[in-house]
């Protein structure tokens, strides 16, 4: 199939101009950024909000009576309110600011699970998880004697639901599951899975790191117990993240870390913890980063997550068709329901070599195991090349990817 046939009309991203970083050249070619699943780029609105805070409003939060501290606190707490609205949490007390998905998951493993589980209990995860949703559970299992159980996936990279239901037994203390696989792009039918788990009174943590950037999230509608995500994958600053948790859980959990900000009163005999969500936010937070995350939420909402999802679906379909037209391509991750993330192999070219050749043509993709080594072993491979799309990409980016792949083939044959 020729490119001309594939391309009835070009798909252009009206939002691209909002991202200053995208208008540069890399290795002598205009940059094509297809690695948003690793980290999203920031719109000018986010960069400016962070800069404004550092230029005009910086002080510590929650502690000064002076004007700057009040401004910083207002902006920081304002961002929390925006995030609450963005994911439709019932209350701002359920929105805990963390350093990222990784910390959010570790917090739940250590504060929710560790005090309550032991030998005979199970922690259930799936074969699709990122290492951040595997290793924290391995640690807590080692610490407590609980058992880690893994639900299988099929050759398309989809969960085998019947087997998952069978694994949801009474001795499962928590199910920790990704919303969208970062390595394969599979979108799990998370709402139905949560419903099945709830019927059996099993709490569910959703690793939403790759969900939030691509679709509208409503934690009340999902009815999950925990939803973890990172700011930098949703076009905000690195070092920011969120743990959404039901208030009843947060009430019942001991603090994750001790320090300033998470207390009401400290004496050497005892400490009274602060109210929610501050009980889980020890120490000075990433104030500028969280303010930037608030600006990212404003920006995404000004476009609308549904529009973003629709746009990305069209562009993803375009990309998959274009990839399939390249001789020697093998797609890894062909689930029926996908986000705009596609892993692939080209002939027997190692993904690391592909990454270098593409980079030299200005095309940035991710290569390797994508922090999901069990996913790679499931397919009997050591890694893949992965192109991931955000709403600032367009069909020209895809065309450039294809041209770069053809060049790689030429070089290797």
């Amino acid at each position, binding site marked *: 199939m020729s490119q001309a046939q594939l391309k009835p009309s070009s798909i252009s991203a009206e939002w691209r101009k909002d991202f200053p970083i995208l208008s540069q050249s890399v290795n002598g070619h205009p940059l094509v950024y297809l690695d948003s699943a690793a980290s999203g780029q920031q719109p000018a609105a986010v960069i400016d909000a962070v800069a404004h805070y550092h230029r005009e409003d910086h002080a510590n939060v929650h502690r000064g009576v002076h004007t700057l501290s009040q401004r910083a606190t207002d902006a920081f707490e304002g961002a929390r309110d925006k995030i609450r609205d963005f994911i439709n949490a019932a209350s701002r007390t359920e929105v805990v600011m963390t350093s990222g998905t990784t910390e959010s998951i570790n917090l739940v493993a250590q504060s929710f699970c560790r005090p309550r589980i032991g030998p005979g209990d199970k922690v259930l995860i799936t074969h699709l998880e990122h290492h951040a949703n595997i290793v924290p559970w391995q640690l807590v299992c080692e610490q407590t004697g609980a058992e880690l159980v893994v639900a299988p996936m099929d050759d398309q990279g989809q969960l085998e639901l019947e087997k998952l239901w069978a694994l949801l037994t009474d001795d499962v203390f928590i199910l920790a599951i990704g919303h969208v696989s970062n390595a394969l792009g599979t979108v799990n039918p998370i709402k139905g899975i949560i419903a099945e788990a709830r019927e059996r009174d099993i709490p569910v943590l959703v690793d939403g790191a790759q969900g939030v950037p691509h679709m509208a999230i409503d934690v009340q509608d999902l009815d999950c117990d925990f939803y973890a995500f990172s700011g930098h994958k949703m076009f905000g600053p690195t070092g920011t993240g969120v743990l959404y948790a039901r208030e009843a859980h947060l009430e019942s959990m001991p603090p994750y870390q001790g320090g300033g900000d998470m207390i009401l009163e400290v004496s050497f005999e005892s400490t009274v913890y602060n109210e929610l969500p501050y009980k889980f936010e020890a120490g000075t937070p990433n104030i500028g980063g969280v303010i930037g995350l608030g600006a990212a939420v404003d920006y995404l909402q000004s476009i609308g997550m549904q529009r973003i999802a629709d746009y990305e679906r069209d562009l993803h379909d375009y990309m998959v068709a274009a990839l399939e037209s390249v001789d020697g391509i093998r797609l890894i991750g062909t689930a029926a329901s996908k986000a705009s993330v596609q892993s692939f192999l080209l002939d027997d070219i190692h993904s690391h070599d592909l990454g*270098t050749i593409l980079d030299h043509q200005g095309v940035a993709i991710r290569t390797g*195991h994508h922090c999901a080594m069990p996913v790679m072993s499931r397919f009997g491979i050591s890694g893949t090349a992965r192109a991931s799309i955000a709403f600032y990409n367009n069909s020209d980016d895809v065309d450039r990817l294809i041209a770069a792949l053809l060049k790689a083939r030429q070089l290797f044959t």
Partner: protein
Amino acid sequence: MTKQAANNAELYDLYRELILDHARNPRHFGRLDNATHKAEGINPLCGDKLKMYFNIDNHGRIEGTSFEGSGCAISMASASLLTDAVLGMSVDDADALFDTVSARLTQSGIDEGSAVDIDVDVPLAKLKALDGVREFPSRVKCATLAWHALHSALSHQPTPATTE
């Protein structure tokens, strides 16, 4: 030369015919059953994993070499070239070659004249084919992985070599 053309040249310099040939048809590939020295090299970043085997005789001469594993074209070619290059060498010479090759590959942006030289014995001259990695800092570790494993095998260090 335009910037694009220069980039192109760098790419062709990295993936020279000799490199691609060794990557596709690695020499001495497989385990060496009578190996006296072996070591593993792991590059955690990209998952390259090589096992290097050496058979060293009583006089400290490398009688046999082989390797197995998987990795990118650069790491496979480098390992393959290594097994050719050190065959028949004394342990001391092979270790000296490790120093030379690592130094040569980690000097970036130098001209040919000032590069640490490799003695121009025929099989060794081929090692210059690895020079292309100098312009690709993220790939230097791929090229040096097998050499670190060689060094580790010769010094009988039991733990896997890494390029960290």
